């Protein structure tokens, strides 16, 4: 008897609740949702970037390692120099997976580039570091730079003045072979030499 009356009471309570919830009673609060603060990202096209405010050249003197790192050339060191990607095409250096070490089998190519620069003292070179797609994008950007710098260090060791060797990393953004296999990756882990010829 008791459980039944309890159930009945609960039923009544629940029915009341359901009714009050289930009927079309409007919620009292109406929340107006504003549009996002900016409806559209403006298209400013290829305006010239503003310089000055955000680009002071900070001064910093690195502390030495056992053998100190060789600072890179100032930006625009070889602005408007003619670029020749043919002369050293056969001297593209290939790297092992996830490595920036210049292998012994690849060193004769670097020696040939060094020899050319030594016999053409007004010319310079840009070393372009590339990666295969198996690293993450951020990691590869740094690895490509390490590869370019490793080749620069090798050229400097062979007697080329540091000021004549520029570097740039393209990470995995400019594959030599667009494939997604071992064969393509082997070709993409590379350092290319672009000969720089001074304007006449």
């Amino acid at each position: 008897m008791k459980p039944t009356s309890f159930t009945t009471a609960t039923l009544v309570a629940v029915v009341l609740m359901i009714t009050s919830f289930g009927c079309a009673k409007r919620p009292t609060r109406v929340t107006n949702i504003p549009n996002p603060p900016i409806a559209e990202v403006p298209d400013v096209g290829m305006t010239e970037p503003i310089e000055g405010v955000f680009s002071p050249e900070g001064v910093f003197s690195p502390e030495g390692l056992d053998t100190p790192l060789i600072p890179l050339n100032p930006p625009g060191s070889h602005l408007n120099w003619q670029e020749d990607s043919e002369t050293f095409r056969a001297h593209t250096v290939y790297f092992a997976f996830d490595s920036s070490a210049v292998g012994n089998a690849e060193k004769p190519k670097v020696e040939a580039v060094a020899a050319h620069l030594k016999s053409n003292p007004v010319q310079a070179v840009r070393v372009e570091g590339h990666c295969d797609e198996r690293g993450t994008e951020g990691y590869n950007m740094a690895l490509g730079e390490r590869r370019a710098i490793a080749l620069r260090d090798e050229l400097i060791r062979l007697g080329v003045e540091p000021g004549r060797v520029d570097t740039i990393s393209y990470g995995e953004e400019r594959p030599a072979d667009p494939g997604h296999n071992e064969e393509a990756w082997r070709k993409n882990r590379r350092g290319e030499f672009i000969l720089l010829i001074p304007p006449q």
Partner: protein
Amino acid sequence: MLKNVSFVVFSLATCASALCQGDRITVIKEALRPGDTEPVWVNISGLTGEALETLEFDLYVQGFNFTNAANAQYLISGSNNGNLQARAIDAINKNTLVGRAYSGASLRRQVHAFADDFVQALGRKGIARTMIAFKTEVGRNSEIRVADFDGANVQQVTRDNTIVAAPAWVPGRFALFYTSYRLGNPNIFHHDLATGRQTVFAKYSGLNTSAAVSPDGRRVAMILSKGGSPDVYVCNIDGSDLKRLTETREDESSPCWSPDGQWICFAGKINERRALLRVPANGGPVQRIATVGAGNPTEPDWSPDGQWIVFTRQSRDFEICIVPANGGRGGDATILVSGEDPSWAPNSRTIVFTRRQGDGRRVLYLLDVFTKQIKDVARISGSNSQPSWAR
């Protein structure tokens, strides 16, 4: 009338089963375990079409899942004829958590607002009206785009016609930093999204990339190679007071900040082996962050609540992993799902990341790290990567 009675019986069953689940639910709240946490069960009724899809998406990627009314912990009901009206009640104590009518903007945005109201009523941070920035392939080049976190309202940010990469939001601002080759060299730019003004931030010799703004918005960590190797640097938001924080022959990458702004975490190498490292933001000795069970870590991102570091394990494939930020649990990492380049949402439980498809195309995904519930952001077309979540 008959219908009404059966509904009542049904509701009683709901009460009973919810009460039985009470203990278990309490335990879950106390110990969120990455990849090993039960979802919170919700029943949605009355909503249809885009409103229903949007609400389910919003809640699923925040650790909710859907069931019948009898098994749900929370009951959401409403209507979406024109504007949204919705109510959420706790199935156990029948308390109303949210009961509101919405107007303005779009139905989609009203649903996002309700999702945030509901999640916030549970004491969590809502993410349904946040944005992401990411890199999109355009032929051989790439540009930066922004979108709502669920991939709606994609907007192009850059039109540099070159490689543009590594977008990062300025905390609390409608502005980005990213790397662009538009001046020939990989340089870091600042982009005010409200005015469209693009400003050169760092154009030092060599590589300028991976800008990461401190949580207080005052400083920028980044990777520069001007010293002869890719190293971690930090400077003020106006570019002044540049400090070199690491000096190694190896490459450092992907700096991120601890939420208190005291540390910068990054991927580097120790004794020839890759590791997650951290350095005081003002300079000092580098410390290792343990990632036991997940070798070759890279691309760390520190959760806004300070508890976790999510990162990419780089082996034959890529896997999203998570580890306690301060060495808890013996530094044991948990491998979550395949993917790379994770970025935390403001709620410290959802991340956005990239996954490569068989054809090389890259697709953005959202993951709730505790339940491992995952959704692709398929509404964004093309090949997209390097997502950054605004927070």
